[in-house]
């Protein structure tokens, strides 16, 4: 019986010729990731293990990014715990303020994630690295601790849903619109425990940043991982960012899928997810008719804080002003993206439009800091979750959208079609 791309990567890392869905395996890890919220719990758990240090100081990435630069004393203590652990264990890939970025924007940029890898991270959006053809999935802190100690993790081999992306998307339709459309179609548990394997001729029209956005939100459909085939664009990205050699796996022609879903990208419209679930999607056309007034716009996060995202937002905001009373917060994903955006003049565009530009942080996405919402306030956000209370008060509302829709909405003061501003 043929294997999916995910199953092939897992089989190779478990030292097995083949695996099948439902099989429990132990796999070797190429990278173990943690942040400032999850790592302290993992470090505490690792202290309880009878082990002598970490399995490989080069294969652990510690990225304080959620409440960094430290938002309060308790957060500062967490970051100090991670910093001291990194120092004690001589962790190669510890990223201090000044070098850090939002973890899932940072690690591919630093070349730490390449095709064929098996990666676990104590952050649910670790599934992002499927964009470069890796198996990567989110776990909790105890799994992270076990991974750091042993270099191994147990997995139940997932079955898969195959998404065949066809044709070329229209001008304002981005990776974000594609994944929101998919989540709207299959629901927030539509891929529960499963791989989401993206294929089809439409992939050639997707930039790497589009693919990162799509893989990033596999978890919002309940998926274990999201993964893309490794094409020339992907290999070019990897060779430009990493010295490591990618290992390319392809799904077998007779691989078994639970379901095959075709998506005609040419028919998609910019898509908005309404409160309080990412599956509550509407097209921009229906959303504009709802005439939803907005108080704040956030452009950033591990989902949409990359160069493509900032470029498209800036192209809409250039020479324009945000609506009166609008708070526009722009967060480049990494220090490199920040610098590139500065050199391209994007930062100037955002500030002149009346926005603020922050240092890289997850801050507002999870209601940490840097843009918390008050009672009944509404935000259009390029982030990934719109759960109750996610960005602040439990009565506040989050509308998830692409950077283009977010930028257009910042100008209009209400959810707007980028075509019309």
């Amino acid at each position, binding site marked *: 019986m043929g294997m999916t791309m995910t199953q092939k990567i897992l089989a190779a890392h478990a030292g097995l010729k083949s695996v099948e869905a439902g099989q429990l395996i132990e796999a070797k890890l190429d990278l173990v990731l943690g942040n400032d*919220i999850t790592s302290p719990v993992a470090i505490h758990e690792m202290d309880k293990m*009878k082990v002598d240090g970490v399995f490989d100081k080069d294969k652990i990435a510690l990225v304080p990014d959620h409440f960094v630069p430290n938002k309060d004393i308790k957060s500062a203590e967490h970051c100090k715990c991670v910093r001291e652990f990194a120092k004690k264990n001589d962790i190669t890939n510890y990223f201090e303020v000044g070098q850090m970025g939002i973890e899932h924007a940072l690690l591919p940029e630093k070349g730490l994630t390449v095709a064929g890898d098996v990666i676990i991270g104590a952050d649910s959006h670790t599934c992002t690295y499927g964009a470069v053809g890796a198996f990567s999935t989110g776990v909790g802190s105890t799994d992270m601790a076990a991974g750091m100690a042993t270099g191994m993790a147990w997995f139940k081999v997932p079955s898969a849903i195959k998404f065949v992306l066809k044709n070329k998307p229209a001008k304002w339709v981005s990776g974000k619109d594609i994944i929101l459309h998919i989540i709207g179609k299959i629901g927030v548990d539509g891929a529960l425990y499963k791989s989401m394997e993206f294929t089809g001729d439409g992939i050639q029209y997707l930039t790497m940043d589009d693919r990162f956005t799509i893989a990033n939100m596999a978890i919002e459909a309940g998926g274990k991982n999201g993964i893309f085939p490794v094409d020339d664009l992907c290999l070019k990205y990897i060779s430009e960012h990493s010295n490591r050699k990618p290992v390319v796996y392809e799904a077998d022609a007779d691989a078994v899928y639970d379901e095959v879903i075709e998506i005609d990208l040419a028919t998609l419209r910019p898509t908005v997810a309404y409160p309080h679930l990412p599956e509550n999607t509407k097209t921009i056309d229906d959303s504009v008719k709802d005439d939803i007034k907005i108080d704040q716009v956030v452009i950033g996060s591990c989902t949409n804080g990359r160069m493509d995202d900032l470029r498209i937002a800036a192209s809409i905001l250039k020479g324009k002003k945000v609506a009166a009373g609008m708070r526009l917060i722009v967060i480049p994903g990494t220090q490199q993206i920040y610098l590139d955006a500065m050199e391209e003049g994007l930062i100037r565009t955002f500030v002149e439009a009346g926005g603020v530009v922050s240092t890289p942080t997850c801050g507002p996405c999870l209601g940490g800091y840097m843009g918390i919402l008050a009672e009944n306030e509404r935000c259009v956000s390029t982030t990934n979750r719109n759960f109750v209370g996610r960005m602040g008060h439990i009565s506040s509302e989050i509308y998830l959208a692409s950077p283009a829709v977010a930028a257009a909405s910042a100008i209009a003061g209400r959810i707007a079609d980028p075509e019309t501003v």
Partner: protein
Amino acid sequence: MENAHGKVIKYGDNVDTDVIIPARYLNSSDPSELATHCMEDLDKDFLSKMKPGDIMVAEKNFGCGSSREHAPIAIKACGISCVIAETFARIFYRNAINIGLPIIECPKAVAGIDNGDEVSIDFDSGIIKNITKGTSFKGQPFPEFMQKIIDAEGLVNYINSK
């Protein structure tokens, strides 16, 4: 393993980790502190109405969202003895097993249990008894490998015992 016995507090679909423990409290990783904010954004009366030993029941996709282990830690630390759901989000499922919070997937039990019912659970057999209604259900058994982690009361002890 010890049986659970208590009153049921029941919720619906897609109870996410942001309502189980809002991120504004994640500047702490102290279980007893996290417990004081458990379920706060979904049910502000949760802590005043629950008693240690009570059982949480929910519908589909319990624990969706973030990988924060703080979510099962908060539920365990406030004294919930077991969570029964139709389905669990996969990271929450792993985390609960890894930290030793008993969880059971059993759609029939969820359908047959109402808020406030008195329920007892035998973890060894997976039998869930609804004492209020006089009915019983059998939960999905864990795969052998996971049962070993559960028997060791978590992944840390399991690794130490290997």
